[in-house]
């Protein structure tokens, strides 16, 4: 009896997950269709760029600064042991550009901007504002979703660039403080050992993560059911969905480009 009930629950969850994955795929197709021919609501896009990007800069700068410094503290014992002072810039730069920067900032972006986006769209849905748009012959995909997807992709890339730069500044500061390594040494280690491809690898991940966060947050926002309680559930589902997507896509992109 218990086994049967557990199996039923498991089946229900798998079906729900399949429905959500399918829903996000359909939304992706609708967004692509809305972009052919390329038409963008300029006012909505600018409003979202400002709202999503501008207010995220302080938190990204603060986090990236600590992460850059933290990596040096973790490396310090080994750098001293092996005398690998010339590799500090390369090691931290490689990790920040290719993995830590895109993933960390992506997850933070998902928790701040993605969650906010889901809450906003879900509230619009339960208060009939989305119906209101349709009643005025305005396509919600074109008016609400497309500007958000574009804004999130652009802003996550921009924030990753800022975060990468600030993390390296944090690395230089802590290298000097903890290991007495001059910032120039860190810098030359970085530029001598890393190429544009390392930087672009991370940027391409941010672009994909931005799309995943946007689509996940828009999907759960627009399919919300059940008033205020439903809004909370939608935000939770969107953040979890975006986090899982980021990890999966990161693995996939790293594996395919290794």
């Amino acid at each position, binding site marked *: 009896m218990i086994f049967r009930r557990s199996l039923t629950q498991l089946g229900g969850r798998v079906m729900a997950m399949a429905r959500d994955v399918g829903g996000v795929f359909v939304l992706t197709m609708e967004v692509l269709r809305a972009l052919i021919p390329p038409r963008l609501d300029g006012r909505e896009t600018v*409003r979202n760029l400002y709202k999503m990007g501008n207010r995220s800069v302080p938190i990204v700068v603060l986090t990236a600064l600590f992460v850059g410094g933290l990596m040096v503290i973790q490396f310090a014992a080994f750098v001293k042991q092996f005398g690998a002072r010339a590799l500090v810039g390369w090691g931290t730069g490689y990790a920040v550009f290719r993995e830590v920067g895109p993933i960390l900032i992506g997850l933070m972006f998902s928790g701040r901007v993605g969650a906010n986006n889901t809450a906003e769209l879900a509230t*619009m849905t339960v*208060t009939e*504002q989305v119906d*209101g*748009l*349709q*009643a*005025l012959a305005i396509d919600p995909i074109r008016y609400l979703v497309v500007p958000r997807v574009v804004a999130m992709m652009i802003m996550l890339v921009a924030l990753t660039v800022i975060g990468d730069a600030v993390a390296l500044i944090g690395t230089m500061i802590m290298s000097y403080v903890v290991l007495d390594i001059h910032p120039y040494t860190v810098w030359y280690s970085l530029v001598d050992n890393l190429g544009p491809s390392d930087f672009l690898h991370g940027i391409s991940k941010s672009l994909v993560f931005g799309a995943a966060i946007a689509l996940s947050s828009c999907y759960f926002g627009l399919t919300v059911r059940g008033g205020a309680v439903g809004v909370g559930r939608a935000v939770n589902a969107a953040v979890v969905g975006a986090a899982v997507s980021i990890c999966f896509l990161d693995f996939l992109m790293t594996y395919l480009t290794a």
Partner: protein
Amino acid sequence: MTARDGQAAVELEGVGKAFGGRRVLAGVSLTVPPGGRLGIIGPAAGGKSVLLKLIAGLQRPDAGAIRVLGHDLVAAREPELAALRKRIGMLFQNYALFDFLSVADNVAFPLLHAGVAADEIDARVAARLRAVGLAGSESKMPAELSGGMKKRVGIARATVARAELVLYDEPTAGLDPVTTSKIYDLLRADQAETGSTAVVVSSDVAAVAAFADTIAMLHDGRIRWVGAAAGLFDADDLVVRSFARGEERDGAAVLSRSVEAARPAPGAWP
């Protein structure tokens, strides 16, 4: 395609709709002539708002046929529906104001997206807001408004584009009697000016009976009664008469539903 002379502006035939196994509408048939004023009354949660959304093409029926302004909504694809919606104005029960836009921008929204010139938009928005008694509130955001003020902004937005068919879902819920009277005067004046067709869902039976020329009562998912508004309070059907008068019948079954329907949403008072 427009509603030709003699052709109904709205025509429903055997319309059915269910949500998750719960039947909301079952075989609803109604006709509204061009320029007509239909009032729809009935117990709360009886499918009145769903009926309006079906007429606006926001939902598809499970059964039956719907023709609006000459378009078959059951067969219509999304581009055709979008084109049709430009000719329809709608006031939502919960206002549906865009909370990221100011009062003036909310009212201007349909005109802006219809490509109307900026100076004409400004003039029409100012005139609409004056008409609903909200001159001076242009720059306020929806969150700063009371329920009654939101309702009036919603009415201004629904009527600013001079649509051929205007659907009002509870246009005066939460408004005081004086404002209610003014709102219906406004709807009447608008209709006289534009020749539009109006469908009004309302729990304020007396007010909607005074406004509409025809009343339909929705009960148990079906049209229980249709007739001239003047005959509503003396209808032969006891259920209809009791509901219209707010009288008790069969253990207060109808009365309790009508009282529930007349009760405004929390925070809806102006």
